């Protein structure tokens, strides 16, 4: 005879990911490094931005990179050319990185020697926002050509980030991009988001961002 029962779970669907993200957080404290997750749509300029950040922080901090791509190793090769320890994650179709992938990648970096590990997430404004990686700084890039209305279209992504770097401001003359509209749209859902207009190509705005980033990194260092 059959019997029917209802069982309460009240469990986060991504509990596995949350648990591993917490393990990653613990690892960042144990090995004393700052984990920075950079998300964006494809072509927003993540690699160019990261390369510029690395060159600006050269000599000040020791940096490692985790490159996420669906296919190819092109970006990782660019990092390698700078002599930066890099791990390439090729997801083979998956449109995001998750905490388990990051944990595995971190095993392949010389963490004892690193101050910062930068994660270049898969280019996608939807899925990467759903997976906590255990990062100290979840952040995103939005490029000027993408438009100022993306927060309305992809609110989850804008809601999980602490910093928004608006890239390619050197192209502002070519596009109708309204910073006031961008700020208005993002602050509807994330009033704490820090917005940095910049261009990795011309360097405009980079110093302001780097100064803020260094403060974030140093404030974590002080807790070690």
């Amino acid at each position: 005879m059959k019997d029917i029962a209802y069982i309460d779970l009240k469990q986060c669907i991504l509990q596995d990911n949350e648990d591993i993200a917490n393990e990653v957080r613990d690892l960042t404290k144990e090995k004393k490094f700052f984990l920075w997750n950079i998300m964006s749509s494809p072509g927003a300029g993540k690699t160019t931005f990261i390369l510029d950040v690395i060159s600006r922080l050269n000599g000040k901090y020791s940096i490692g990179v985790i490159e996420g791509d669906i296919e190819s190793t092109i970006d990782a090769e660019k990092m390698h050319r700078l002599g930066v320890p890099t791990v390439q994650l090729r997801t083979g179709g998956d449109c995001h990185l998750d905490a388990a992938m990051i944990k595995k990648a971190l095993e392949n970096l010389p963490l004892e020697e690193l101050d910062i590990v930068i994660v270049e997430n898969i280019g996608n404004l939807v899925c990467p926002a759903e997976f906590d990686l255990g990062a100290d700084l979840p952040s995103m890039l939005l490029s000027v050509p993408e438009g100022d209305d993306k927060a309305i279209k992809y609110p989850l992504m804008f809601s999980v980030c602490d910093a928004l770097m608006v890239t390619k401001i050197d192209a502002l003359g070519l596009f109708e991009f309204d910073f006031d509209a961008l700020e208005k749209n993002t602050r509807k859902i994330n009033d704490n988001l820090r917005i940095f207009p910049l261009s990795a190509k011309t360097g405009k705005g980079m110093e302001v961002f780097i100064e803020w980033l260094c403060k974030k990194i140093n404030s974590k260092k002080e807790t070690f």
Partner: protein
Amino acid sequence: MHELPITKSIFKSVIAKAESVGAKSVRMVALEIGVLRDFIPEFVQKYWNYITPGSIAEGSVIQIKEIDATASCGKCGTIYRIDTKNIQDSKCPECGYDYGTLITGRELKIVGIEIESCKEDKVDK
């Protein structure tokens, strides 16, 4: 598309729980999903039907309760609903302030499961 990895996670948790209580089969899975997750319920069921054959969850139904997006006003703290189709016009209904911080709308929760067991088997809730 982004529903697929999430549906796989649901499957893993549901099977683990159902097996731990000695279920013979799973009939229903109740979820709470925030509207900002942009989940299409039909897709979740479709992927579920793709993943579950051969398991004790085969043939089960996914029930999704959508959770509204709400924000806390940056000025007076009032919690108000955000119309996700019209985020640009949302504002605090009490003080009229434009900006807020998201409170709900990002939920991803398995609330419970309905299982079938043989009567002689004890179901440990």
